[in-house]
C-alpha cells in the first residue's frame, strides 16, 4: 500500500490542482490545439459530406458487393466499438479492483468510450441503406401490422447492446462529472472579462456549467448516496465490457461463413477490444499530457501500466489467432481449412501479414522496461497496435466473406473513394469530439483525485482506524 500511495501521490494543494486541471478550459486554446482541431474537423467534414451524399445517391458509391456485403462499414463498426471498451474497463473494472492508477485517466478514457460508440453507431446507420427508417429496429407498437422486430436475431441483440452501452456509459460519465462541473461553476463566478462580449461569453459558460452541475454543493448526505451509485454503476458497467463485444461477435459467430462460425469469437473479440482500446487511450493520454501540461497527473507509471495491459491482451489476441488456425486444421473440413489458407496466401494476404506484424510482434517490445517507459516508443506502438487491430477486422470481414463455399460465388473487394472517405471521416469525428471535450470539460476527474489524496493523508495520520 505504502509504495503505491507514493507513486500516485500528487502532493499539491487542492486549489492548485483546480488551476492545473481547469486551465485548458479557462485559457484561450494554443496554436497546437487549433491546428489539431482544424485538421480533424476537416476530416470530419469530408466524412459527413460523404455520408450525406450516400443518403442522396444511395449505397452504390461504396464497394460493397454480393459476397462482401459488409465491407468497410462493419470493419469500422467493430473497430470503433472495440476502442470504447478500454474506457469502461478503466472506469468500472479497475474501480472495483481498487486500482488507484485509474483515477487520473478515467475521465478522458470514458469520454473516448462515448465518442467511439457514437462513431461506431454511424456505420450500421449508413449500412442499413435507408437510415430514415432506422427507428423500425425498435420494438414499439406500430401501424405496420404491427411489424415487430425479431428478438432471435443477433443483429437486434447488437442494437440493444450498443444502445445500452452508450446510455449507461453516458450517464456514468455525466454523474461522475457533476462535482467537477460544480467546481467549474464556482470558479466562473469569480471571473471578469475586459470587454462586453467577453463578459457575455463568460456568463453563457457560467450558466451552462451551473445548469450541468445540477445544484451540487458537495453535501455529505449527497456524497453518501453518490458513492454508492459509483460503485453500483461500476458493477453494472462491468458485465457490459464483456457483453457488448461478445454480442458483436455473435453477429459473426452465429452465421455459417467459414472463419466466422467459431466458439472462440466472444473471448477473442473482448480481448481484442481491450487491446485496441488501451492502445487508443495511450495515444490520447500521451497527447493530452504533453499538450496540456498534465504530467503530474498522467505520469510515466500510468503509461507503463497501460503498456503492460497492452502486452497481456496482445498475447491473448495472438493466442486466439493461433487457436483459430489450430481449430481449422483439426476440423477436417476442407472449406474451413481453405478459409485460413486463403488468409495466409490469398489475394488479401498482405492484410493478414500487416495484422500479424502489428498485433503479434509489436506488443513484445513492452517486455523491456526501457522501452515501455519511453514516451516515443509507447506513442509509436500504440498507433501500430491500432493499425493492426483495424486490419484484424479487415481480415475477419473481407477475407472471410470474399471466398466462402462455392468458387462460383467468390468475388473480390475493391474499396472506393467513398469507403476511404467515411473511414477517414470517422477518425475526424472522433478526434474533433475529443478535442472539444478537452476544451470544455475537466479532462481529469478532479473530485476523485482529491478523494485519493485526502483519504491517503487521513489514513496516514489516523493509522488504519481512519479508513472505512
Amino acid at each position: 500500500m505504502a509504495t503505491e500511495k507514493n507513486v500516485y501521490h500528487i502532493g499539491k494543494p487542492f486549489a492548485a490542482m483546480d488551476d492545473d486541471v481547469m486551465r485548458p478550459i479557462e485559457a484561450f486554446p494554443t496554436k497546437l490545439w487549433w491546428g489539431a482541431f482544424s485538421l480533424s474537423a476537416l476530416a470530419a467534414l469530408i466524412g459527413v459530406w460523404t455520408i450525406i451524399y450516400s443518403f442522396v445517391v444511395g449505397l452504390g458509391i461504396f464497394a460493397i458487393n454480393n459476397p462482401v456485403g459488409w465491407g468497410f462499414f462493419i470493419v469500422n463498426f467493430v473497430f470503433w466499438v472495440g476502442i470504447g471498451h478500454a474506457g469502461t474497463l478503466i472506469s468500472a473494472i479497475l474501480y472495483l479492483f481498487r486500482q488507484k492508477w485509474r483515477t487520473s485517466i478515467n475521465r478522458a478514457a470514458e469520454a473516448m468510450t462515448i465518442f467511439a460508440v457514437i462513431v461506431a453507431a454511424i456505420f450500421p446507420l449508413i449500412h442499413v441503406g435507408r437510415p430514415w427508417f432506422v427507428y423500425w429496429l425498435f420494438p414499439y407498437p406500430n401501424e405496420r401490422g404491427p411489424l415487430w422486430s425479431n428478438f432471435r436475431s443477433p443483429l437486434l441483440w447488437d442494437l440493444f447492446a450498443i444502445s445500452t452501452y452508450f446510455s449507461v456509459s453516458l450517464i456514468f460519465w455525466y454523474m461522475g462529472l457533476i462535482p467537477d462541473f460544480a467546481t467549474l461553476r464556482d470558479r466562473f463566478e469569480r471571473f471578469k472579462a475586459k470587454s462586453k462580449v467577453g463578459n457575455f461569453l463568460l456568463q453563457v459558460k457560467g450558466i451552462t456549467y451551473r445548469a450541468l452541475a445540477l445544484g451540487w454543493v458537495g453535501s455529505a448526505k449527497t456524497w453518501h448516496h453518490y458513492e454508492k451509485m459509483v460503485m453500483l454503476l461500476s458493477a453494472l458497467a462491468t458485465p457490459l465490457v464483456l457483453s457488448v463485444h461478445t454480442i458483436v461477435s455473435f453477429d459473426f459467430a452465429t452465421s455459417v461463413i467459414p472463419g466466422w462460425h467459431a466458439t472462440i469469437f466472444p473471448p477473442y473479440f473482448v480481448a481484442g477490444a481491450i487491446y485496441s482500446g488501451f492502445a487508443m487511450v495511450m495515444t490520447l493520454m500521451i497527447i493530452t499530457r504533453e499538450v496540456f501540461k498534465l504530467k503530474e497527473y498522467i505520469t510515466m507509471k500510468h503509461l507503463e501500466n497501460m503498456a503492460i495491459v497492452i502486452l497481456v491482451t496482445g498475447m491473448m489476441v495472438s493466442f486466439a489467432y493461433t487457436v483459430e488456425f489450430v481449430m481449422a486444421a483439426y476440423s477436417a473440413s476442407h472449406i474451413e481449412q481453405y478459409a485460413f489458407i486463403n488468409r495466409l496466401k490469398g489475394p488479401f494476404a498482405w492484410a493478414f501479414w500487416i495484422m500479424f506484424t502489428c498485433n503479434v510482434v509489436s506488443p513484445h517490445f513492452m517486455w523491456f522496461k526501457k522501452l515501455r517507459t519511453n514516451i516515443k516508443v509507447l506513442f509509436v506502438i500504440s498507433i501500430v497496435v491500432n493499425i493492426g487491430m483495424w486490419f484484424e477486422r479487415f481480415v475477419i470481414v473481407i477475407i472471410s466473406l470474399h471466398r466462402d463455399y462455392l468458387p462460383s460465388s467468390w468475388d473480390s473487394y475493391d474499396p472506393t473513394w467513398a469507403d476511404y472517405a467515411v473511414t477517414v471521416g470517422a477518425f475526424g469525428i472522433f478526434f474533433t469530439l475529443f478535442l472539444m471535450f478537452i476544451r470544455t470539460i475537466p479532462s481529469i476527474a478532479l473530485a476523485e483525485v482529491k478523494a485519493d489524496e485526502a483519504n491517503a493523508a487521513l489514513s496516514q495520520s489516523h493509522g488504519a482506524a481512519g479508513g472505512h
Partner: protein
Amino acid sequence: MLSIAEIKRGLFSYEEASRGFIASFKDPAHLLKAAEKTKQANVKSFDCYTPCPIHGLDHAMGLHRSWIPALTFVGGILAGMLGLGYMYFIDAINWPIVYGGKPFFAWPSYVPVLFELTIYFAAVFTVVAVLVLGKLGKISRKVPAPGVTSDIFAIWLGDANLTKSDVERILSGLPAEIQEIKP
C-alpha cells in the same frame, strides 16, 4: 426491524442550509472530528460540505446506510420482468411466427436482450434515485460556504435553538472559521 420513519429518514435526509451556522476547515481530519462532536452534542439538523468524498464521514455523522442499492435492484428486476413479458406478448400472443421450427416463446434467444434491458434500467433507476434523494436539480442553489467545491471542508449546524456560543463550544479545540447564515 426498520420502522417507516427510519426508512423515510434514511431516504430523505438532505436539508437545505438556509439558517444556523457554517464552520469551515482546511483539513478533512478536523471536519471528521467536528462531525463526531456535533453528533455527540445531539444536534439534529447538520450536514457537511466537502470537495470530495471523505472516508468515514458518513459514520462520523451517523448517516443511515444508503438505500440506493435496493432501488437499483428493484429497477433491474422490474425491467427484466417487463421485458420478458413484452417479448412473450410480441412473439407468442400478438404476432406468432415460426422461426426455424422453434417454439413461439423461445426464451434462450431473449437472454441477451433481457440482460441489456436489466442493466439499462438498473442504471437508470440508480441515477434517478441519486438525483431525487440527493435533491439534485435545483440549479439556483448556492454553496453554503465559499470554496467547498475546491479546498474547504465545512460543517453546517442548523438547529433552531443554537447560538454562536453553542457552536463555538461544540467545536472547541478545532481551528474552525464560524459564520452565521442570514436567511
